[in-house]
């Protein structure tokens, strides 16, 4: 009897919420469900292909998530879409490539690290490339903030956005001057061999490498924002700049540190992108940046957990679109996701709670 009442109450509540939801939500749910069913049919038809593609999607998603975190951190704290962030990612991949080549500005520092080098040298090379790229990108991001965004902090928001677009073009053309217009190849340092014993599902060492590097970075960031003094200051500034400065928080320094964190993640992501895909190019930041921004918006901009979830979702969506719709349509699919999310659910899947809660709950 009692159980029956509870069930009735629940189903009644569900009905009510379904009635209360707008037609937009209902259509969105229906379309998503339809797409999932279609995907499921494909997965049943050829599971090996589906899961191999899923692995690629998750790995790409990890790379995107790192960049998306940079967008979301900055948006959470100063409500700016840092348009130059994607190009900072490109700079990161170029720096990594330069470190691996062992020469800078014509000065040979050490012999280039290639796929033929010893295992120890490869590990050292990759770690060195990651660390240098993270440091350079962090510095570039802070410098951009100081030079271009800080003087405009009290200007209309779109004036800052235009400045960010200008900075994006400047970085992109610096990349063009640096490495030329053609795609440049990364040495193959991480093996593309399949880890799994079967040939059916492909999970390569590359995938393991990217995921293995991303998880510690994500945990580190989460620890920093939640548990450290500086992380607390970041959350305070995101909530209310004036009040934060009143209680003695150095707002300018906190904003700089936020940009530093975003740059560090973009640098790591850039190097991993190059090692994973084997190539990079001066305008890679435009599309990767927009994908990452889409991820940040999809998860709820300002929300750290959201950016990570969004990153993995966008990675999976793009790899599925590559496989089942056609590579040439992938960017249209991603941009459509961007437009649809912004139009119908601008606060994203998890809600735009800004860095205040450190994301989540």
């Amino acid at each position: 009897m009692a159980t029956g009442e509870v069930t009735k109450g629940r189903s009644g509540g569900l009905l009510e919420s379904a009635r209360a939801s707008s037609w937009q939500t209902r259509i969105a749910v229906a379309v998503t469900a339809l797409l999932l069913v279609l995907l499921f049919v494909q997965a049943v038809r050829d599971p090996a292909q589906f899961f191999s593609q899923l692995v690629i999607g998750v790995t790409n998603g990890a790379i995107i998530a790192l960049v998306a975190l940079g967008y979301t951190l900055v948006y959470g704290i100063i409500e700016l879409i840092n348009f130059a962030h994607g190009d900072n990612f490109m700079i990161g991949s170029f720096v990594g490539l330069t470190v691996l080549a062992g020469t800078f500005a014509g000065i040979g520092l050490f012999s280039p690290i290639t796929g033929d080098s010893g295992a120890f040298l490869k590990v050292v090379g990759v770690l060195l490339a990651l660390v240098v790229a993270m440091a350079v990108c962090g510095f570039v991001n802070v410098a951009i903030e100081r030079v271009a965004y800080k003087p405009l902090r009290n200007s209309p928001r779109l004036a800052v956005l235009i400045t960010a677009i200008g900075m994006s073009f400047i970085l992109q053309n610096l990349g063009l001057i640096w490495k030329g217009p053609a795609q440049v190849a990364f040495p193959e340092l991480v093996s593309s061999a399949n880890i799994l014993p079967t040939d059916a599902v492909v999970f390569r060492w590359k995938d393991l490498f990217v995921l293995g590097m991303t998880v510690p970075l994500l945990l580190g960031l989460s620890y920093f924002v939640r548990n450290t003094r500086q992380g607390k200051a970041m959350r305070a500034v995101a909530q209310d700049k004036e009040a934060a400065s009143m209680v003695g928080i150095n707002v300018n320094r906190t904003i700089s540190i936020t940009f530093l964190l975003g740059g560090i993640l973009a640098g790591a992501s850039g190097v991993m992108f190059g090692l994973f895909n084997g190539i990079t190019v001066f305008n890679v930041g435009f599309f990767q940046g927009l994908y990452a921004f889409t991820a940040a918006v999809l998860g709820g901009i300002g929300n750290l957990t959201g950016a990570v979830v969004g990153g993995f979702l966008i990675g999976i969506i793009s790899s599925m679109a590559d496989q089942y719709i056609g590579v040439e349509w992938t960017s249209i699919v991603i941009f459509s996701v961007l437009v649809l999310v912004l139009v119908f659910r601008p606060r994203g899947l998890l809600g735009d709670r800004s860095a205040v809660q450190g994301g989540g709950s």
Partner: protein
Amino acid sequence: MALLRRYALPVVLIVVALLFPLWNSFLEETVDVNLMYPVIVITVYIMLALGLNIVVGFAGLLDLGFVAFYALGAYVVAWLASGHFRQVSVAFGTTATSITGEEVPGIHLSFWLVLVLAGAFTALCGVIIGAPTLRLRGDYLAIVTLGFGEIIPRFFQNGDDLGGFNLTNGTIGIKAIDSPGFPFLPDSLSAWQRFGTLELYPWFYTILVMVLVTIYVNVRLQDSRLGRAWISVREDETAAAAMGINPVTTKLWAYALGATFGGFAGAFYGAFIKNVFPTSFSFNVSIFILLMVVLGGMGNIYGVILGAIVLQGTNFFLLPQIKTWVNSIGEAVGNQALATVDIPKYSFFIFGIMLVLMMLFRPEGIIPNRQRAEELHDETGSGDAMGGAIRA
């Protein structure tokens, strides 16, 4: 006197523009295509910049995908005035004729009709894109327009096989677009009967008239009820809504009007270069037009025209000139890198720096609109729109 002061400058400028080709042929014996071609392209960009000025300058909406309307206009001309759809054969007032007198395959409508259709089509697209998106906040709207600006050219790129139907001919693009012209004119005016590829005066006067119409509409809009509604929505949307202005309708008008002029310019440009392909409608073009508006002065018609002339002039004349200088300096000092550097390739490096410097030091542009300048220098709060709109 007041009348003189008001009309002297515009009249002088219009006369200069009208006489420009005469001056050109006065200096040189033959028509200089190398000068007239850039001048026509510059004029097309003046029109685009004026269209974007309605959206960015008047209504305060940042549009990062304006190139979409330009592309749509160009493709409308390509569809309706070329041999692309060879399944059908429709001709109306066209300049395209076959030597044998047979029916020409494809749709060949009169350019003047297509121009109107292109404007109407892009306005419709502007409304379709704008209606769901215009309630978004400023920077979100900018990103949505950017999304559309990327989707539409990519759609044209992939549109050569839509379920077996070739809509856009993919990356190759649509070629051999009909020339505009007035086929009914007597043979003595052959240059106007069908605009030729080397006889550029008819092209110049056509786009000049189109720009003058655009300017007239811009001027009239500025002081109209709608123009004042744009200012109020730009400065404070909530207050404007409280005064009985419908913000969404007001913004939608700006968006649709801007799109219309983008479509006109695209249609003319498609007919002028005779080929349209998707790669000529990249994100860079959107930013280039935006920079014209920002550099010249958002909301100021003179400023926007100046911005377009300065930037496209830099592109066509100054950068190649700088390249020659730098290369000769490089040769003189024996520096290989300087001697071969291709400066115009890095044009967007320069434009990016210009964009940042303008925003940092003179956000109101070279010739500011007084009201916009005040809004942009308002330090009391960070506004949402392109100026104004102090947040509580």
